[in-house]
């Protein structure tokens, strides 16, 4: 597994917010039909996206005879790969937004509404520090 590209940002958002998506690599094929929407996206929408997100390094590389793919690289060293074969430019920009807004973590189920590492403010209940039970 590749090492993290930077020191892990603890408590991202408290002092400063650092966007976690570091790089987006666009692979396409010049000839194949599944890359048609991808090529249209690269011509029309990609430059604007790159200007709006200067913190993301955008790389476009032909990958002949393969389906078009977007690979996002994150600060924790993980990458997310999305195949965009046969997709229209509108759908491709949706996938790009998905990669851009993610943080590189594995997909997980969020069971609790608040994720916290601070210990409880009011403390854990103890029978020795509570008013005695009265009947």
């Amino acid at each position, binding site marked *: 597994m590749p090492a993290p590209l930077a020191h892990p940002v603890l*408590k991202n*958002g*408290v*002092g400063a917010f650092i*966007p*976690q998506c570091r790089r987006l690599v666009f692979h396409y094929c010049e000839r194949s039909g599944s890359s048609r929407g991808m090529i249209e996206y690269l011509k029309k929408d990609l430059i604007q996206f790159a200007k709006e997100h200067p913190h993301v390094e955008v790389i476009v590389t032909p990958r002949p005879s393969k389906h078009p793919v977007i690979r996002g690289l994150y600060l924790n060293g993980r990458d997310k790969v999305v195949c965009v074969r046969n997709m229209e430019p509108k759908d491709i920009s949706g996938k790009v937004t998905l990669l851009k*807004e993610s943080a590189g973590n594995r997909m*997980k189920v969020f069971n609790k509404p608040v994720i916290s590492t*601070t210990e409880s*403010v009011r403390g854990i209940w103890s029978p020795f520090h509570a008013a005695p039970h009265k009947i």
Partner: protein
Amino acid sequence: AVASSTSRLFSTTCSASQATPTVTTPSPAGSGEGVSPSSTASVSSVASSSSSSPINLLRDQLRYYAVAEIKNRPYLITKNDIIVLDRLKDVQLGDVIELTQIKELGSKDYAIKGQPYVSPEYFSIKATVIEQPKGKIVETFKKKRRKHFQRRYHIKPLHTLLRVSELEVKAQ
């Protein structure tokens, strides 16, 4: 709407065997703070000196929690927490959201309970949008036995994660 809300201060320590002091404060638009003591005598000394005003009692305890209401749902938060919400459509990464609908603001021994919300002159609570991920696939399986009915629904929930970047109680 916030100007008409009032707040109650009550002590949360279980060891306080006397009745908890209740303090009602009028709306911020009104005249200064008023203290209406309960049946016990201990509150009457907490009159108008600013160092022992109810909010400062809470503030001196240094560690706070708040029950914030976001989209009509309560979230009990402290500083540095991550709030997991359903996807907010109109925010971008890095946006700072100020949470003003606070139902309860507390520390170890004291809490201010809003009616319905705590007056915003007592606190400053901010949250930053750090991520907008997609969750893992959740499957709902329904079956009615002996009726040839079963369904599988798959959802990939969209979330917005907020990091509570600031949770401060303001001195009065």
